C-alpha cells in the first residue's frame, strides 16, 4: 500500500458503535459507576468524548464541567457550553481562578518567569514554546519562554532548567485542580471520570500526571487526532469546535499545541506517528508531510525520545515488593 493521508480513514459509524459498547461495559462492569463526568475545554477531544459518553450512556448519565480560569481564552466557556447544550446533559461551571490564587499558582509561575525576564509583571503575557523541527535535522528540543511586554514587544529566551521546571510545576496546578473537581462531582454522583487524550497525546505523554492524565476511562486514547476530528464531526459536535485549531488554553499568550509540545502540526504529526508505528521509511513519508527525509528521521527520534522521557507519566505507583493478593 502506498503511504498517504488516507491511512487514517476509518469507518466512523462502526468505530463509534464499538467505543460506545466499550464505554457501557467499562462503566457498568469494570468501574461499577452510574455515569461519566467530562471536563469540557471547548476543544475537539473533550467534546468528542462527551458526545461518545452521551451516545453510549444517555445524557442523564453524563455530567459536564466547565472550568475556566484567568488565562483561559474568552471563547472557551461559550464553546464548552455549546457541547453540553448540543448533547443535552447537565453541567456545572467551576471557576478555577480563586482556587489557583489560593495555591499561588500564578505567583509561583511569575516568580519563575522573572528568573528569565526580571521585569515581568502586570500587563505582560507569556507562553513556553519549542523551536520545532530543525532545518538541519539535528538539535535538541529545548523550551523557550516567549513574553509580550505591556508595549506589545515580543521577546524570547531559552529557559534554564530551574525556571522551566517551576513554570511547568506551577501551571500543572491547573490540570490537577480540574481533576480534583472532576472527582468531587464523580463522587457525589457515583460517576466515573473521563480522560480525553487522543493517541498523539497519550503516546507522547502530553498530559499532566495526576492531572488530566488521571482518569477512570480514556475513550479516544487509541484514535489519532485526525480521526478524533472526523469522529467529532460524525457525532455532531458543533462546527465552531470542529473548525478550531488545537490550543493548550493554559498560558496567557495564545499557544498552539504544535509550538508547545509536538514537533509538527497535528495532521502531519499523526501521519508521522502512524508511519513510524507501521515501519514506513522516512524517504516515503517525507514528500507526504512536506519535510526532508533527514527531518522525518529527526521526528522519529523525537517520538522515541518523548516516549522515553514521559514513560514516568504512564507509570502507576511502583512498589518495592510484591503484594500478590491485589490483582488488577
Amino acid at each position, binding site marked *: 500500500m502506498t503511504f498517504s493521508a488516507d491511512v487514517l480513514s476509518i469507518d466512523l459509524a462502526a468505530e463509534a458503535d464499538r467505543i460506545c459498547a466499550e464505554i457501557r461495559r467499562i462503566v457498568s462492569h469494570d468501574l461499577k459507576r452510574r455515569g461519566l463526568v467530562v471536563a469540557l475545554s471547548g476543544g475537539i477531544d473533550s467534546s468528542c468524548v462527551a458526545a461518545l459518553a452521551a451516545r453510549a450512556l444517555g445524557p442523564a448519565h453524563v455530567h459536564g464541567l466547565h472550568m475556566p480560569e484567568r488565562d483561559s481564552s474568552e471563547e472557551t466557556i461559550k464553546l464548552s457550553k455549546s457541547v453540553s447544550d448540543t448533547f443535552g446533559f447537565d453541567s456545572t461551571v467551576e471557576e478555577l481562578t480563586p482556587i489557583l490564587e489560593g495555591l499561588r499558582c500564578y505567583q509561583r509561575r511569575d516568580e519563575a518567569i522573572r528568573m528569565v525576564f526580571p521585569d515581568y509583571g502586570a500587563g505582560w503575557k507569556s507562553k513556553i514554546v519549542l523551536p520545532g523541527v530543525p532545518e538541519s535535522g539535528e*538539535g*535538541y528540543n*529545548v523550551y523557550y519562554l516567549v513574553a509580550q511586554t505591556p508595549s506589545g514587544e515580543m521577546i524570547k529566551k531559552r*529557559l534554564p*532548567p530551574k525556571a522551566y*521546571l517551576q513554570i511547568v510545576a506551577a501551571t500543572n496546578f491547573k490540570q490537577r485542580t480540574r481533576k480534583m473537581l472532576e472527582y468531587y462531582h464523580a463522587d457525589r454522583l457515583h460517576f466515573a471520570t473521563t480522560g480525553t487524550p487522543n493517541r498523539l497525546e497519550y503516546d507522547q505523554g502530553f498530559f499532566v500526571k495526576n492531572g488530566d492524565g488521571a482518569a477512570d476511562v480514556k475513550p479516544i486514547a487509541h484514535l489519532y487526532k485526525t480521526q478524533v476530528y472526523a469522529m467529532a464531526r460524525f457525532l455532531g459536535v458543533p462546527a465552531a469546535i470542529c473548525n478550531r485549531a488545537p490550543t493548550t488554553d493554559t498560558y496567557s499568550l495564545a499557544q498552539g499545541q504544535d509550538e508547545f509540545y509536538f514537533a509538527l502540526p497535528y495532521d502531519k504529526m499523526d501521519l508521522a506517528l502512524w508511519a513510524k508505528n507501521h515501519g514506513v521509511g522516512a524517504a516515503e513519508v517525507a514528500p507526504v508531510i512536506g519535510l526532508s527525509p533527514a527531518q522525518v528521521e529527526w521526528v522519529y527520534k523525537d517520538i522515541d*525520545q518523548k516516549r522515553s*522521557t514521559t514513560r514516568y507519566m504512564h507509570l502507576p505507583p511502583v512498589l518495592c515488593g510484591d503484594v500478590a493478593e491485589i490483582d488488577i
Partner: protein
Amino acid sequence: MGTVNQEQVRRDVTAFIVENFLFGNVADAPRPETSFMETGLVDSTGILELVAHLESAYGVSVADDELIPENLDSVGSIAAFVVRKKGG
C-alpha cells in the same frame, strides 16, 4: 577559570552525572563515548541541567545554535566542546 583540558572536563562531567542522575552509582557511569540519546541516560531536561552546570563551572555561555548532539551527546563530546569554547 583559566584553560582546561579535556580530561579534566570529562572527569568533572562524569562526576556531575554520577552525582545528579545516578545517585552516586559509579558502576553505571557513562564511558566518554557513550551516547546520551541512544542510552536514554540524559534526557532533554538533563541536557539543560548539564548546560547550566557547564555555564556556571567553566564560565562559558552556550548559544542556542550550539545545543546540538555533536557538542553535547557524550562526556567526550562535551569535553571537546568546552575546551573549544575556552579557546584551548
